[in-house]
């Protein structure tokens, strides 16, 4: 098995955070891939929910969805419902994990997917919230997955599309966000947690082969550091093989490529 790419490291580390029997509301791309991988390996009873109304889908390897609302995202789901229904299960507290990506992220876990620069005269218009704002406002434990780059890890996001701890736990509480919390940021370099007292990001563990200095060099703010920094176990051959099969599938889509691992 050839060595893991940074994205593979990140996706596999993300997948390991998901416990069996739980419900994860996953964004399309790496969070969804991490969730599907977890379901195939150690969490067969994990329920994946996707923004478009798909509950419990199992993916066809090689035909992962390009958007969360399409037929590939509905494949072998056990419930296909409306978008509002799907989100309202979250607002009711039924989703254990919310798992999203981030364009720009700051030391309090605030996420920007709307504007780079001044929103009234933006340098770059990004795709927007979609369900990300709703996910961080409602899913019990919020996790974020993103490449670890200085342009992404900024001191203060230009625009808070999806609130993390805002300026700290008290500001989050007084904004009315009292029912859930951000818990982790997974990157290709590290696993970060949040300091309970300040709500600031904290380096908890390093990806294999990455140094603490490299993490700091790629973080645009002063990152808190855990008392004992761990090291994430390297991807196993099985994890890598499964992830690659998921992404690439077979060239020819036939019923044999269909996933049959676990019950919904």
């Amino acid at each position, binding site marked *: 098995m050839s060595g893991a790419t940074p994205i593979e490291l990140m996706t596999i580390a993300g997948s390991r955070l998901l416990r069996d029997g739980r419900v994860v509301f996953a964004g399309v791309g790496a969070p969804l891939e991490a969730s599907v991988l977890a379901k195939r390996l150690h969490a067969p009873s994990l329920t994946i929910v996707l923004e478009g109304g798909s509950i419990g889908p199992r993916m066809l390897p090689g035909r992962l969805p390009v*958007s969360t*609302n399409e037929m590939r995202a509905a494949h072998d789901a056990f419930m296909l419902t*409306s*978008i*509002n229904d799907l989100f*309202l299960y979250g607002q009711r507290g039924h989703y254990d994990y919310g798992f999203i990506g981030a364009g720009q992220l700051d030391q309090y876990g605030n996420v920007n997917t709307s504007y780079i620069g001044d929103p009234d005269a933006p340098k770059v218009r990004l795709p*927007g919230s979609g369900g990300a*704002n709703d996910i961080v406002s409602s899913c019990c434990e919020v996790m974020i997955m993103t490449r670890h780059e200085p342009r992404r890890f900024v001191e203060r996001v230009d625009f*808070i*599309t999806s609130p993390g701890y805002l300026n700290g736990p008290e500001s989050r509480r007084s904004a009315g966000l009292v029912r859930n919390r951000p818990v982790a940021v997974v990157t290709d370099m590290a696993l970060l947690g949040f300091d309970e007292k300040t709500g600031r990001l904290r380096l908890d563990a390093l990806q294999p082969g990455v140094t603490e200095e490299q993490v700091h060099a790629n973080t645009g703010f002063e990152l808190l550091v855990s008392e004992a920094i761990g090291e994430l176990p390297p991807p196993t051959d099985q994890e890598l093989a499964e992830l690659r099969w998921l992404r690439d599938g077979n060239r020819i889509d036939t019923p044999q490529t269909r996933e049959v691992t676990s019950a919904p």
Partner: protein
Amino acid sequence: MKDAADKRMTLSEAAQLVQSGDTVVGGGCCYSRTPWAMLLELVRAERRGLTLARNLMCYESELFLASETASKLVSSWVGIGLRWGIPKVFREYVERDPSIYEEWSHLSFGMRLMAGSMGMPFLPTASLLGSDLLDRLPAEHIRCPFTDQLLVAVPALVPDVALIHVQTADARGNAQIEGPAYMDVECARAANTVIVTAEEIVPSEAIVRTADRTVIPGFVVDAVVEVPFGSYPHECHGRYEADFDHFDGYTEMVTREGVAGVQAYLEETVTAPGSFAAFLDTVGASRLLEQRRRARELVAA
């Protein structure tokens, strides 16, 4: 109109129900079950200055801006999908004038339609709290009269017109949807005028036999148009997959030529063919049937 026993008409007749300046909401989600034929019919009918609202938008966003069909967009997300990113011309328009785009979160947008569909002027939600989105939107903090919990009230969205594409409907407008319903039901209930396009118009007996699958009752519907492949090149659940090659061709052209590329696309798919059926002919039967085959692979259990 709503009490007519037979509401069948053509796309161009249905377009007469939409006035320039209207707020139009589109059903489906991103590139799924988009009322594509009807959207392009509004371009063909040269409606101007519409406000187009849709929960997630695909590249109809920039088709409507570049043709001046819409002067404002309301959504929670605009993108074509992971592989193609954000529509380039949409981005240019909004970077030039951010006021033409109103950004909600997915659920808060949905709660606006749900409020409209419930006949309520507002609904509460826990979304938007603490975000910078809230500061830029016509939404308000509200406290629960029982628990004092801090929440966000979003105002009802009551569109002038809803465009909905479904798999089956009868002549009276009773409509059934296969796969996820997205926000179509809320759109149809909230809007003052409702145009339903359907892959197939079926006899009312077929609707009666499966009455618990009917999600839009005829009494909210003003027009029913049979449009096979009415979402193409977008997908229609269970019927055909989105045509990703078509997306590739489109995005290449727009990346290369910008707004002129968008206009060339409209020329090719709207103006030159003259009708949606003629556009499908330019695509060709074998390509459409291949999209059908690919859909069957995904839904067969």
